[in-house]
């Protein structure tokens, strides 16, 4: 009996020694901002959030991203964001600068979408930040 226990313990130690290196060690700063829509008086309406933050949020509402249509010389871009309450922001643009920004999006991106103050259907700007902290 005692021999069996000793064998069991030694096998467990051996197993631990062999497989402990396989387990990943996660370190480093992480941040997954969820979607927020800002509508302060006197300032352009905007939305921001990370794709990972929206994807792994606890609610089933959040979403943030952009669509691009490139079947003409001028690309057509639409960006949108939905926060946890279901409030949404949607805007479009044919500006090449916005298309260039949207093309830089990855699955570890943080987006900032700004509406034009004089036209609530047009994007004034779209900011894309790609950073390791936004990785899932």
């Amino acid at each position: 009996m005692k021999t069996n226990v000793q064998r069991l313990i030694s096998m467990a130690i051996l197993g631990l020694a062999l497989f402990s290196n396989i387990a990943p060690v996660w370190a480093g700063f992480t941040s997954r901002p969820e979607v927020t829509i800002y509508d302060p008086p006197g300032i352009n309406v905007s939305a921001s959030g990370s794709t990972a933050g929206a994807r792994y949020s606890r609610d089933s509402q959040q979403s943030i991203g952009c669509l691009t249509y490139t079947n003409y010389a001028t690309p057509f871009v639409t960006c949108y964001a939905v926060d946890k309450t279901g409030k949404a922001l949607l805007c479009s643009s044919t500006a090449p600068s916005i298309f260039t920004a949207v093309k830089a999006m990855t699955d570890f991106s943080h987006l900032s979408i700004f509406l034009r103050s004089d036209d609530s259907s047009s994007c004034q700007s779209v900011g894309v930040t790609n950073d390791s902290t936004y990785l899932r």
Partner: protein
Amino acid sequence: MTTQNTELWRMIVTLSIGVILGLGGFAWMTQPPPPSAQPTSTDSKDDQRLVQLEQAVTALTQARQVKQTTSAQPEPTRATMPANSEVSRQDLAQIIREEVRNAVAQESPEAQRAKEEAIAEAKILNTPENKAAYQSASSVVQTAVAAKRWTEEDKETFRAAFGQLTNNQRMELMNILAPAINNGDVKVEVTGPLF
């Protein structure tokens, strides 16, 4: 001796022929290519603009000369001539400015893109597919605004039609849908992309 002379002459002749052939070949290989006989259409356009500019500049120079001559020979009409001359100079300067501005504008990448865009849109606009897609997308937007909700079904229908539209049609529909969603008049009931 004669045989030796003959051999020497043969060698000299052979060497001379070799040198001539070598020089001829080198000259033939290194000669520059003949200039293009027919100018391209861009060259032709540029030439036309250049001719117009040259004509304007010549006219301007003549106007200046007329002014100088007039001021050198005082006449009773002297008081009115400088004013006319000044006007014509301004007109010519304006013509030159416009010509230059037009030439620059026509060559800009934005102008080229706009031209391509207009041509591509004209090909698609009012085709049966485009008409059907526009009707479908427009109907979805109007229904959503009236019902104050954007549903999964709206999303699917709108997405299917959106790709067939021209950019102007897309913007037209977005000008209705986006403000309604942004103001909260239309409640979003979809998950993921809005369309």
